[in-house]
């Protein structure tokens, strides 16, 4: 796929995710008025909690000026979300050329999230006896996400983000090739500890399923692959990125998270 097609797909995915969120939001807002959780003062902006300046001053929640109460956003993290990519775990059962795992984590700073990923993948391919290729390597990503669901009481996320990613991998290939002019040649080639880096634009959803369990997906448009020179052979597959001959590449994670709270979630901020 070309870069333009990738960007179009990413844009389409963002639209799809946004429309899913939009379709779910009104019901969620309506439900939140009736569920016990939503009656909890910290989760609604119309009814300030006892931690709000209004309640500290002993004012009744039925203040004569409830609309003028402003709750500033708190940028202190409220929890750490740690998860794993389910696709990487399930994929080896139906794709025997792939082995891998990935751990994802993020920390919230109001609607901004610091995201960290660490993963490992291995590939093994054979092309009808002519070439046998394998690679193995680790990768990590660091970046930030911005949540566009500012008013969701459960802090569900529809996000856009950026990542900087690095990988270090080794690969080897046993190849017997035949050229119509220059004949046949066999060789065992190795690249060891090849560093690579790239950039990703991400989008996706995080949805609270039950208590501390969250599900989500992340779609990634990876580009700007930069690799060290490899004198032995040209890298074929970069762990974390994919095919090395692609200027841009798609990635997709379907993730299960556990959210470990570090403090009580403050009420949603309100604005004038």
């Amino acid at each position, binding site marked *: *796929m070309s870069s333009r097609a990738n960007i179009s*797909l990413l844009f*389409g*995915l963002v*639209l*799809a*995710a946004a*429309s*899913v969120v*939009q*379709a779910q939001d009104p019901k969620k807002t309506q439900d939140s008025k009736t569920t016990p959780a939503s009656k909890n003062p910290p989760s609604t902006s119309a009814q300030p909690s006892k931690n709000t300046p209004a309640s500290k001053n002993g004012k009744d929640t039925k203040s004569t000026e409830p609309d003028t109460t402003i709750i500033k956003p708190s940028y202190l993290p409220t929890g750490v979300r740690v998860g794993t990519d389910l696709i990487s775990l399930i994929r080896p059962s139906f794709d025997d*050329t792939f082995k891998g795992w990935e751990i994802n984590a993020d920390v919230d700073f109001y609607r901004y999230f610091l995201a960290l990923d660490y993963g490992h993948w291995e590939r093994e*391919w*054979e*092309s*009808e006896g*002519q*070439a046998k*290729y394998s690679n193995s390597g680790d990768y990590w990503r660091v970046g930030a996400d911005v949540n566009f669901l500012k008013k969701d009481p459960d802090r569900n996320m529809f996000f856009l983000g950026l990542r900087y990613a690095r990988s270090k991998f080794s690969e080897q*290939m046993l*190849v017997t*090739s035949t*050229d119509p*002019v*220059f*004949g046949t*040649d066999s*060789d065992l*080639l190795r690249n060891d500890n090849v560093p690579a880096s790239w950039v990703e634009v991400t989008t996706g959803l995080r949805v609270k399923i039950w208590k501390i369990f969250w599900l989500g997906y992340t*779609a990634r448009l990876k580009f700007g692959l930069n690799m060290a020179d*490899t004198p*032995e*052979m*040209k*890298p*074929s*597959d970069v762990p974390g990125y*994919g*095919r*090395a*001959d*692609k200027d841009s*590449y*798609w*990635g*997709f994670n379907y993730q299960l998270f556990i959210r470990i709270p570090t403090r009580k979630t403050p009420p949603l901020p309100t604005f004038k």
Partner: protein
Amino acid sequence: MKRLSWFVFFSIFTFSCLDQPDCYQLNNNVMVIAFKIIGGGTDVYNLAGVSTPGTDTVFLAGATGSSSVKLPLNPYATEIGYTFDGYYGGINTGEPKHLDLSYKSLVQFVSEDCGERYVFSDIAPTSTDFDSIRILNSVPTQPPSSNLEIYRCPRTNILYVDFVADVAIDSIKFGPNERVPVGATLSEIWLPLNLLADSSTYIFNYTDASFPDDTLKVTYLRTTKTLSPKCGVQNFISKLRYDTLNSSFTTPTLKEDSIYDLPKINFELTR
């Protein structure tokens, strides 16, 4: 809307898996060399063949009128030498020309269906006896496009004579003692001009002894110019004239009064 969203979501998910490469034209092992004339245009090469060590194959055997050639690079090596056997610009010097190149060749696994491919880059000339070489693109492309231009210094002394009717020539004498055997029936001939003088004289001796010899004397203006350090100072000819008093051809027609490379008809002569 919700249903459409899920459709888009799963379509994208499926589409993202379609990353298998196209196996067609994976290698970029064909290099294109274009022949040029310094200060001029496109050159023409008539090849008896191009050979390279490591294979018995002779490339482009008998290719005539080529202004560019496509040659393969050896995927298992990082340098290659080509020997061009033939003649260029219409002149057969009888000496083959050589071109040695260095390059990078790296193998890359593509897919289980396609196998591997060789990726070539960093083409650079290491030695040659051509007059000049210019690298246009050090990476062969797919489809192939010009990578190298081979230049030669222009020849400034070729007089192109066209005979209106074919003539059987036994020999041509030019200069005080130079006689070149021809022994053929010709419709046109290229004659060397004397660049050390402002005129050149040719005496045509015909196969049919009953025909008297004909004389062609041309005068011209010489101008020196340096097109390239490789070529040095060269004489360029203009204001070419047919010397009526000292020539015996009837109805000579001047077509071009300057000398070109590749040659253009200067005179049309009728015996």
